[in-house]
Structure formats: structure tokens, C-alpha cells
């Protein structure tokens, strides 16, 4: 059910990420201002964009769940949020490394982009205790969906709020005018972003497949128990 097309998707992910890494180190030039350290940008920013899109996707799946009552949409929402939280850990870790190398500090509290991402991350950390504190599966799915929709709506609002913030210490590379990235850097960034998006979808399908197989196994066990 969920594993359809997983093998070619995984192959495409491996090829794209390998190409992206090769472009990062052998094609994209060093940044004139930051030098070699700017290479962190190609893993940190795509990971952040994909994680935030994953949170929003979790909200969209949750809407579908509440509209249809089909629990498979709740499962899709849960796995998307779960994966986005894992990527969020990566974003915070790589961001801290980049901050230390660029600014001399692991964390800068007056930088709106960093703090707003941390706020979103911590908000979604609440999803787990909320979800797993409810035993009844229907209620669990319903309440989790409501949370996923509310939090999913907060993500773009938060993004806009950061854009409207006054301080611009953080490098701004994507804007309505196309940003300041030169062509070869932009191409490398776009390939990295594509690779990260493919990785997200591959892992999302992989986890959905594993969870679905586990649920089917539980059903088989119950059937065997009833038959015995």
C-alpha cells in the first residue's frame, strides 16, 4: 500500500543527494565573505525548509483525516511530523555549528530566525506527549489532528513574522527578487533542496510501510487468537 514506488524513489534520492554533495564540494565556489564554512548552508537550509514543509504537510493530512475520518491520513500526518522533528534536530545542530564558526557562539538569542525555528521545534515536541497520553485510538487521532492543523497554520505565520522582523543578522538568501546567490551556488542549493525533499518522501514512505506492516501483523495475531 505505502511501499508502492519506494525502490525507484530511494534510488533517485541516493543519486540526487550524491550529486548534491559532489556539487557542494567540487562545483559551488567558496563564499567570498564566509569562505569554506558557507558549505554548511547546503545541508542546513534545505533541511530547515523541508522540515517546515513537513510540519505543514502534517497539518494538511490532519485536515484530510478530520474531513474523511480515515485513520490512514492520521498515520500520514503523524509520520510527517515525526520525520520533521528528526530533521529539526539536524537543523538545530547544524545551525549551532554554523553559528559557532561564523559568529563565535553556539547560539544567538537575539537572532529571530534561530529562535523562531526553536519555538516551532519545541511546539511540535508537545505533539508526542499529547498523542500518546490518549489511549482511545479514535480520540488520539482526532486530538492529534486538531493539534497538527493548529501548529501547521502557525508555521507559515511564524515564517512571515520573521521576515517582518527588523534585524537582519541572518543571511537572507531567498527573496521575492531571487536572492543574492550566484548561478552555480543557486543550482547547487536547488539540487540539495531536491535531494532533501526526496529523502523526506522516501523516509516518510519507509516509515509508513513499517507502521502499516506492524498494524497488519497485529490484526493477524488477533485473528489467530480468536481462531484458537
Amino acid at each position: 500500500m505505502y511501499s508502492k514506488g519506494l525502490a525507484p524513489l530511494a534510488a533517485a534520492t541516493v543519486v540526487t543527494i550524491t550529486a548534491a554533495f559532489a556539487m557542494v564540494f567540487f562545483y559551488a565556489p567558496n563564499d567570498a565573505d564566509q569562505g569554506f564554512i558557507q558549505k554548511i548552508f547546503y545541508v542546513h537550509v534545505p533541511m530547515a525548509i523541508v522540515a517546515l514543509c513537513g510540519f505543514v504537510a502534517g497539518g494538511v493530512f490532519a485536515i484530510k483525516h478530520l474531513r474523511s475520518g480515515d485513520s490512514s491520513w492520521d498515520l500520514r500526518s503523524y509520520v510527517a511530523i515525526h520525520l520533521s522533528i528528526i530533521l529539526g534536530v539536524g537543523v538545530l545542530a547544524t545551525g549551532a555549528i554554523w553559528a559557532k564558526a561564523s559568529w563565535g557562539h553556539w547560539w544567538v538569542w537575539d537572532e529571530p530566525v534561530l529562535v523562531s525555528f526553536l519555538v516551532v521545534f519545541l511546539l511540535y515536541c508537545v505533539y508526542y506527549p499529547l498523542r500518546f497520553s490518549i489511549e482511545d485510538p479514535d480520540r488520539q487521532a482526532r486530538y492529534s489532528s486538531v493539534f497538527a492543523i493548529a501548529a501547521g497554520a502557525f508555521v507559515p505565520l511564524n515564517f512571515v513574522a520573521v521576515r517582518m522582523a527588523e534585524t537582519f543578522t541572518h543571511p537572507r538568501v531567498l527573496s521575492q527578487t531571487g536572492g543574492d546567490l550566484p548561478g552555480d551556488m543557486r543550482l547547487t542549493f536547488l539540487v540539495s533542496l531536491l535531494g532533501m525533499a526526496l529523502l523526506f518522501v522516501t523516509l516518510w514512505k519507509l516509515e509508513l510501510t513499517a507502521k502499516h506492516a506492524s498494524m497488519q501483523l497485529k490484526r493477524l495475531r488477533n485473528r489467530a487468537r480468536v481462531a484458537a
Partner: protein
Amino acid sequence: MPALPLDEAGKYVAGAYVVFLALILVYVAIIGAKIARIERDITALVDAEDDE
């Protein structure tokens, strides 16, 4: 701050990419372990069915 020299910047860049790869590898290993457990359980279920 001025750009870090390559030998120093290299450590940070390597650190960031290792964090990313480690995260993905650990995640895939956990999912792999889950799938292996499901496979073992299915085998046990089929064996129990055959014994009956």
C-alpha cells in the same frame, strides 16, 4: 568576523555533514530493526500455524 582558514573551517563543515549523515543512518537503522522484528514475528506466526 573574517572567514576561518580552511583547516579550521573544514572541521565545522565536516561536523555539520557528519551530524546529518549520522541522523539519517540512525533513523534508517531503527526502521530497519523494526522491519526485522516484524519479519521475525510473521515467521513465528506462520510456524505456529503450521504446527497446528
